[in-house]
């Protein structure tokens, strides 16, 4: 069938980060995810495109939500899933990342979903194995599927990100979510402000395509979307703020503070929530909260990502066979 315009084609067999994606590529993933969304609402929550494919969840850091979301996404595409986590594998016996990956590859895997404490680990892996690599969080660098599900959620509710003002609040330094969000949101035309105490903002922040504010009160009334990051006690060393109560007082999203916000502001959180710290329960469960929609949309977005990287890999195999 002839097409009037040249169709966009997805050609990446790895999803390593959003920084390297074009706005068209990001939009294409979101459009594809829209096609997957209703599958999770059906009686039969399964479709066949990854039948016979093997997906490995290779998690060197703790995760429940992301790992389960990827596992569900893979199984809803009919792939088989092998879980490989740090505690119950040879990873804890000192095997290197590449040895682990090569062993997995010898089992015939098609896609590796990797989370690793070291930034760049997924990219390293992608250079040494033939399988597709999907980054599920690397160090403080990126968490691309979280960024994608966040922009998917906003786009679905607001139609477009163009011109929207978005605040990302909290521990920016240790947040790969903030970075992936920043790339996805700015590439789609939103204006992003990082908000937090100076001690939790990265040293190179002025080189990033964002504004910076040290006061949530200055920002709250202007933004269309607010994303409250979790305070990651496990990553923060030293004393970035005097006390949890003080942090909460200045940077927590309270019911009181919400009174100053636009009535239709979208309240987001990547989870898990520290209730009463970065966000009060009445706000997290309130009518502006889209936190649970983010979780559901995450499955559709991850289905789209697994589907697309597999398509790109299949295309490459076909091209090699033909030449």
């Amino acid at each position: 069938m002839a097409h009037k315009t040249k169709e966009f084609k997805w050609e990446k067999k790895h999803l390593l980060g959003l920084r390297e994606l074009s706005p068209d590529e990001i939009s294409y993933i979101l459009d594809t995810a829209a096609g997957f969304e209703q599958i999770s609402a059906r009686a039969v929550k399964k479709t066949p495109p990854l039948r016979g494919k093997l997906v490995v969840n290779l998690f060197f850091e703790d995760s429940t939500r992301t790992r389960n979301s990827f596992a569900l996404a893979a199984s809803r595409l009919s792939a088989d899933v092998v879980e490989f986590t740090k505690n119950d594998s040879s990873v804890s016996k000192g095997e290197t990342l590449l040895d682990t990956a090569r062993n997995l590859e010898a089992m015939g895997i098609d896609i590796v979903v990797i989370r690793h404490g070291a930034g760049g680990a997924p990219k390293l892996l992608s250079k040494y194995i033939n399988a597709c690599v999907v980054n599920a969080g690397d160090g403080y660098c990126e968490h691309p599927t979280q960024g994608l599900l966040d922009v998917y959620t906003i786009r679905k509710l607001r139609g477009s990100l163009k011109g929207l003002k978005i605040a990302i609040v909290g521990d920016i330094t240790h947040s790969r979510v903030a970075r992936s969000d920043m790339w996805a949101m700015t590439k789609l035309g939103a204006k992003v402000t990082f908000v937090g105490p100076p001690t939790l903002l990265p040293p190179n922040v002025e080189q990033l395509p964002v504004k910076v504010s040290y006061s949530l009160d200055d920002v709250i009334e202007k933004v269309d979307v607010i994303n409250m990051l979790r305070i990651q006690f496990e990553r923060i060393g030293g004393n970035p703020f005097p006390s949890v109560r003080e942090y909460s007082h200045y940077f927590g999203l309270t019911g009181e503070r919400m009174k100053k916000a636009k009535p239709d502001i979208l309240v987001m959180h990547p989870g898990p929530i520290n209730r009463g710290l970065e966000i009060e329960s009445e706000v997290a469960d309130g009518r502006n909260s889209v936190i649970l929609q983010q979780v559901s949309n995450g499955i559709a977005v991850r289905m789209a990502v697994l589907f697309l990287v597999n398509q790109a890999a299949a295309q490459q195999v076909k091209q090699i066979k033909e030449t």
Partner: protein
Amino acid sequence: MKVLLNSRQIEQILKKLSSRIVAGTPEDVEIAVIGIRSRGEILAQRLAAILAKKIKGDVPCGTLDITLYRDDINSPKNGVQPKVRPTEIGFSIDDKIIILVDDVLHTGRSARAAMDALIDLGRPNAIRLAVLVDRSGREFPIQADYAGYKTNTKPGKIVQVLLKESDGKEQVVVD
């Protein structure tokens, strides 16, 4: 390029198909029309409107995206990457007679994929296939219940259905 059907002939075929569908459907079973994206979607909407007038009742209409069920999903022809789009069926297909609509029936592979996709959505009373053009060259044991125009177009040629909603003009051509 040869024109097989013009807009008047397309309209007549749809009317004829709808008469045969009504005649072939028991009155006590609910009927619904589901089109295969993208030309089948448009034809299904037109067919549903004609059917609704004929039976003086509602005829639910939906759109099926078969991309995920295609058998060439991992080796698409001519490097064209199929885009996944939503299936939009806002009603239960259980116990209904589903009139599955496509523009051209050729190899039968799309119809196979569509049936698998439908069965994942429920258990219809029956699935009947209605097509505007029935072209020879079947690769699967699938036939249309309601076929409009029949043609023996040679392999390698392309039968293209152009509709005003998607293409700005209304005709069926062979290229």
